[in-house]
């Protein structure tokens, strides 16, 4: 499957990925409106972690052995059979946070809207996720890892 690879040595911690992710998952998909009016209802699903000079952008790893899926007690968390992406069916999610307990990357957050799990969906319907498109330094890159 295609996976977003993280190059921490390239990341300058600018946070543009977070901005574009938030806008992409907002209702308006407009940057000003998303930040002015929707800030309370939408979270970026990528988070830049920083510690001194080290930084990297972290979003769901869409793990081969996805611990969030096995922990999900409702069946809301699932693997898309076509793309291999790990997705949350927010209609079925009840916000029990079993997935948060299980995810070793800490890549899931409690959503602010409707109390459902908020995580990277690889920008469903787009060839390349917006964080990857907008990273100025190729610190997150979409790569095929089928040969691994």
């Amino acid at each position, binding site marked *: 499957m295609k996976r977003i690879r993280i190059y921490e040595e390239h990341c300058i911690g600018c946070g543009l990925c977070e901005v574009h992710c938030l806008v992409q998952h907002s209702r308006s998909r407009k940057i000003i409106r998303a930040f002015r009016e929707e800030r309370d209802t939408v979270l970026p699903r990528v988070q830049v972690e920083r510690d001194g000079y*080290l930084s990297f952008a972290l979003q769901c790893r869409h793990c081969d052995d996805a611990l969030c899926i096995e922990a999900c007690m*409702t069946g809301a968390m699932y693997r898309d059979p076509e793309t291999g992406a790990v997705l949350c069916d927010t209609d079925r999610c009840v916000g029990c946070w079993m997935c*948060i307990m299980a995810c070793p990357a800490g890549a899931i957050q409690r959503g602010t809207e409707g109390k459902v799990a908020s995580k990277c969906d690889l920008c469903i319907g787009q060839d390349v996720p917006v964080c990857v498109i907008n990273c100025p330094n190729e610190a997150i890159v979409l790569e095929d890892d089928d040969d691994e």
Partner: protein
Amino acid sequence: MSDAKYLIIGNSAAAIAAVSGIREVDPDGTITLVAREEHHTYSRPLITYLLGGKVDEEGMLYRPADWYERVGVNTILGAEVTSVDPQAHTVTTADGRTLGYEKLLIAVGGTPIVPRDLQGADAAGVFTFTTWDDAHAIRQYIEEHGVQLAVVIGGGLIGLKSVEALVALGIRTTVVELADRMLSATFDETASRLAQKRLAEAGVEVRCGTTATELLSEDGSVVGAKLSDGDTVPCELVILAIGVLPATDLVEGSAVATDRGILVDDGMRTSAEDVFAAGDVAQARALLCGTKRCIAIFPNAYRQGAIAGRNMAGADATWDGGLVMNSVTVVDMPTISVGVTEARGEDCEELSELDEDAYSYRKIVLEGDRIVGAVFVGEIDRAGIITGLIRERIDVSSVREMLLTDDFGLISVPAEYRRRVLSGTGVQ
């Protein structure tokens, strides 16, 4: 009916995971799944949500309605298996059927405990609460009898969740817990105290250090619970939530060895050839202590089922050891507890941070250089990183100062482990 290559007893987390596990290895071997309950596979932990009106019937389904068909599973629902004959490679059902198999999985879960010395437990209005049908029956009883007062016996996970459902229905509820605090199996004292405070604020009466000795009834219906401390609590409904025991009765007298549960090795194989067990019924190796224990939680059931399924189809998957963990919301207060939540032994140490008024609490239990447990109340968002460090037995001596800081994240963990997690190609 002709023999199935794979026969699965059960239709819940472990069974469904097993079907997926089999299909990863063997796309077309015949699978038959037989279960006592007639329902399509559903999420057991959601039964309290259903009672409380937080999910509807459709929301109960653990897999889509066409799932069995899509993955190629024949189902026999509403049939109870009463015995297993590993020698003959057959099982028999209560309605007199004999089913043959090449590989068998027992994933029958647990049976709710009704204390033998509790008098009056057969009155109307007294329920255990572990199935969809229980949720229906309780709902119906509440409506027909206009229930306003309830007693929940047992202050563990199922008890707590039952309370939440009853409170959502506007029923005044008392919890009776024999231990000196609620959720004592998974919480430390501080977390229990916060949970109890929260419940008290929501109008729930929590009575610890006592238990019901007799249920009083009038005209066959329950009207009160007599407690060991001498008090009587009036009520129109009692939910028994003392716990579940592995449902091992179907293998009694067979070659399948049991202790508390059905004993399995790291490949989920039982002592009998071609017979596997997984989920709440199984007793498998625990991660931290290394001995075989029954850890009746959803993620374990799923993982064990998946391993059993792959191995039934000829793979060699191995269990990494069970870890007790739970994520429970107590009246809007999220909590997560993992592993050992109270330091025991010389080499153990606790790091903690508490803001009592904000209902915020974090604690990490270390044994030497490794984390063996954690409790989170309020702030839970990075809990999974800690779970990962526990599961993988990572040496955290270089980062221990960071563990409870606000900006703790994956960036804080040892670099080699971090890269492994980031690669996404399996944590194992």
